[in-house]
C-alpha cells in the first residue's frame, strides 16, 4: 500500500485511475454540451454561413471569361499588352471560334456584360458581333482579323484585347479594386479618376454616421434607462410599453412617419412656423440629408440601447449611491465616480448592438437620406438588384463585413459578448 501512494496513480471508486476517470467525465461533459449545440450549429451553417460564404465568393469569381472564351484566353497568353499592337491572327481566329459556340449557347452577352464593367463598350461589341457569329464559317479560310474588325471596329482597339487578357484568369481582384476605387490600368493597379471615386468615401461616411447614431442613442437612452430602473415596478412597466411600442410598429411605417414629420411642409416645420420660431419662407431642411437619417435611425435603434442599459442599471443597488453621499460626495461625484462606472457594461453592450445594426441598414437611409445620408449598403443593394454587378456587390459586402467583424472581435475582447443583455 505504501509504495502505491508514493508512485501509483490515485484511483477512483471503480478502480480506474482518478486522472483518467476525471478526463472521461470531462470528455462526456464536453460531448453533452456539444450535442446540445450541434443542431443549431448545423442549422446556422447550412442556412446562413454557407449562403454568406457563397455570396462572398462571387467577389473574386471570374471563370466566366475563361469558360466562355477558352481558345482566346489560351491564344492571348503570349501577347504583350503593352506593345500597343493588335494580337496576331491566331487570337482573332480563336475569338471567332469561341464567339460562334458562345453565340449558339447565348452566353456571349454575359461575358460582354462582365467585361463591360471594366471597359465600357465591350457589351455592345459582343452583342453586335454575336448576332453574326452563329453564321461564322470556320473552315472557309477567312482572315478573321479583317473580318472581325470589319463587323465591328471595336476589335481593332488593343485596349479591348488588354481587358480580355487582364480578366482571363478564373479568380480576379478586379471587383475588390473597384470597391476601393481602384482599377487595373496598363501598369497594374491605379486609382480611379477622382470623378469616379465613390466607395471609400461612402464607407467613411457610413462609419461616421453610425457613430453619430450610436452617440445620440447613448445620450437619449441613458436617462430613460435610469428612470425605468429607478421607478417602482408598476410605473416602470407601463413606461416600458412606450419603449417597446416602436418595436411593434413596422420599420417602414416608422420611417414614413419620420418623413411626414421632418419634411419642409411637414409637421415639425408647420409647428415651428405656427409658433413663430421659423419664418414660412425659411423652413428648416431636416430631411433628405444626414440629419434626417440620424434622427430616424436613432429612433429606430433606441430600444436596442435602452434595454441592455436598463438590465445593467437594474442590478446596481441604490445603497451604493446613498453610501457615497453619506460619505460626503456631492450628487455629481456620487453619480460620476460610483454609479456611472458600473453602467459602462450596459453602455458598451448597447453601443455595439446599435453600431453594428446601424452600419448595415439600408431601407431607412434610402427613404430619408437623400444623397448625402445614404450608406454603403444602399450601393450594395443597388448593385444586386439594379445594376446586376453581383461581383462588385459581393466585394463591397466583404469589406463591410470585415469592418463589422473587427468591431465584433474588439468588443468580444473588451466587454465579452456574454455580457450583452436584452431586457
Amino acid at each position, binding site marked *: 500500500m505504501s509504495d502505491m501512494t508514493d508512485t501509483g496513480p490515485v484511483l477512483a471508486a471503480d478502480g480506474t485511475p482518478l486522472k483518467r476517470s476525471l478526463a472521461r467525465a470531462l470528455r462526456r*461533459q464536453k460531448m*453533452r*454540451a*456539444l450535442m446540445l*449545440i450541434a*443542431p*443549431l*450549429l448545423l442549422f*446556422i451553417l447550412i*442556412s*446562413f*454561413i454557407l*449562403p*454568406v460564404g457563397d*455570396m462572398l465568393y*462571387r467577389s473574386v469569381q471570374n471563370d466566366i471569361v475563361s469558360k466562355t472564351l477558352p481558345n482566346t484566353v489560351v491564344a492571348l497568353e503570349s501577347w504583350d499588352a503593352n506593345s500597343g499592337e493588335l494580337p496576331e491572327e491566331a487570337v482573332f481566329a480563336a475569338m471567332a471560334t469561341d464567339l460562334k459556340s458562345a453565340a449558339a449557347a447565348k452566353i456571349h452577352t454575359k461575358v460582354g456584360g462582365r467585361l463591360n464593367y471594366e471597359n465600357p463598350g465591350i457589351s455592345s461589341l459582343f452583342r453586335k458581333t454575336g448576332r453574326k457569329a452563329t453564321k461564322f464559317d470556320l473552315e472557309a479560310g477567312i482572315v478573321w482579323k479583317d473580318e472581325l474588325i470589319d463587323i465591328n471596329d471595336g476589335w481593332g482597339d488593343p485596349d479591348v484585347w488588354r481587358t480580355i487578357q487582364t480578366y482571363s484568369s478564373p479568380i480576379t481582384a478586379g471587383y475588390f479594386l473597384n470597391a476601393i476605387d481602384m482599377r487595373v490600368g496598363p501598369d497594374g493597379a491605379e486609382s480611379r479618376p477622382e470623378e469616379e471615386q465613390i466607395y471609400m468615401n461612402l464607407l467613411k461616411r457610413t462609419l461616421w454616421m453610425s457613430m453619430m447614431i450610436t452617440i445620440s442613442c447613448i445620450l*437619449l437612452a441613458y*436617462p*430613460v434607462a435610469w*428612470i425605468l430602473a*429607478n*421607478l417602482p*415596478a408598476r410605473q416602470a*412597466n*407601463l413606461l416600458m*410599453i412606450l419603449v417597446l*411600442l*416602436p418595436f*411593434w*410598429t*413596422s*420599420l*417602414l*411605417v416608422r420611417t*414614413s*412617419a419620420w*418623413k*411626414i*414629420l421632418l419634411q419642409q411642409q411637414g409637421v415639425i416645420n408647420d409647428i415651428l412656423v405656427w409658433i413663430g420660431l421659423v419664418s414660412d419662407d425659411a423652413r428648416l431642411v431636416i430631411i433628405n440629408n444626414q440629419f434626417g437619417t440620424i434622427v430616424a435611425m436613432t*429612433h429606430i435603434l*433606441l430600444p436596442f440601447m435602452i434595454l441592455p442599459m436598463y438590465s445593467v442599471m437594474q442590478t446596481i443597488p441604490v445603497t451604493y449611491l446613498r453610501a457615497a453621499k453619506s460619505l460626503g460626495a456631492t*450628487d455629481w461625484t456620487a453619480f460620476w465616480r460610483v454609479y456611472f462606472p458600473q453602467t459602462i457594461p450596459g453602455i458598451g453592450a448597447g453601443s455595439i448592438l446599435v453600431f453594428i445594426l446601424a452600419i*448595415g441598414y*439600408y431601407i431607412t437611409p434610402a427613404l430619408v437620406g437623400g444623397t448625402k445620408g445614404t450608406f454603403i*449598403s444602399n450601393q*450594395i*443593394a443597388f448593385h444586386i438588384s439594379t445594376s446586376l454587378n*453581383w461581383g462588385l*456587390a*459581393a466585394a463591397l459586402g466583404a469589406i*463591410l*463585413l470585415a469592418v*463589422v467583424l473587427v468591431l*465584433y472581435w474588439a468588443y*468580444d475582447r473588451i466587454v465579452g*459578448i*456574454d455580457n*450583452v*443583455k*436584452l431586457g
Partner: protein
Amino acid sequence: MSGLPPYASTGQRVWYYTFRVICGLIFFFLIAPIVVVIPLSFNAQDFFTFTPEMLRLDPEGFSLKHYRDFFTDSGWQAALWNSVRIAPVATILSVSLGTLAAIGLSQDHVPARRAIMAILISPMIVPLIISAAGMYFFFSRIGLQGSYWGVVLAHAALGIPFVIITVTATLVGFDRSLTRAAANMGADPVTTFFRVQMPLILPGVISGALFAFITSFDEVVVVLFVGSAGQKTLPWQMFLGLREQISPTILAVATILVVVSIALLTTVELLRRRSERLRGMSPS
C-alpha cells in the same frame, strides 16, 4: 430613489423636475411617429398629408376607407395570412434550437466556445443586405428560393442570435446545483429540464421569442429576396405600398398593429400583477 426627499435643496429640486421633463421629451420622441401615424390613417385622401380639412377637424377630411381597403383587399388579407403563417413557425424553430444551444453553451468546458458563439451570433452582425443576397443565391441553388420553408428557415436564422443572447443572459444567473439536486432525487434529464430548469429561465426564453417573432414579423429585406408571390408578408406588402402607390392603407395597418400590441402588452402586464397579488408578493 424615485421620490424627492423633503430635505432636498432648491438645486436638487430644479434638477429633479428638469430631469423628468427631459425624460418625458425622450419618451415623446419614442412615440411621436406613432402619434402621427394614427390620425393620418383616417385621412380621406390617398396621400400621407394632413389636409386643411383634417386640421379644421372637418368630418369631410376623415374616412375609414383605408381600413375598409385593408379588410377587403385580397392582397392585404393574403399578406396578413402569410405573416401569421411564417412568423410563429420561424419563432418556434429559433426558440427551440436556440434554447438548447444556449444551455449547451452555458456548461463548463465547452470547446471552442468563443468561435461557436461567434458563429451563432453571426446572423445579427452580418449586414442584412449581405445575408439576404447570400440566401437568395444559395437557396435558389438548392430549390428553397420562393418557397414557404425557405422564408421560414431564413427568418429562423435571423431570430436565433436574439434567443441565444437572452437565454444565455438568464443562464448566467442560474444555480447549477438545482439541476444536480433534481438528478440526485432521481429525475431524468428531460424531467429536470422541463420541471426545474425551464421554469427558471422562462423569462429569458420568452423575451428571446418576442425578439425572434418581431424579427420575422417586421422583416422586409430578406423576404423580398428569398420569398416569391406566395410568401408575400405584411412588411412586403407595405413596401410595395410605399414603392408603387403611396397609400395610407399601410398607416391603417400600422394603427391596427399598434392597437393589438398595446392590448397584448397591457394584458401581459395585468396578468403579471394578478399573479403577483395571488402569490402574495409586493410589487418589486
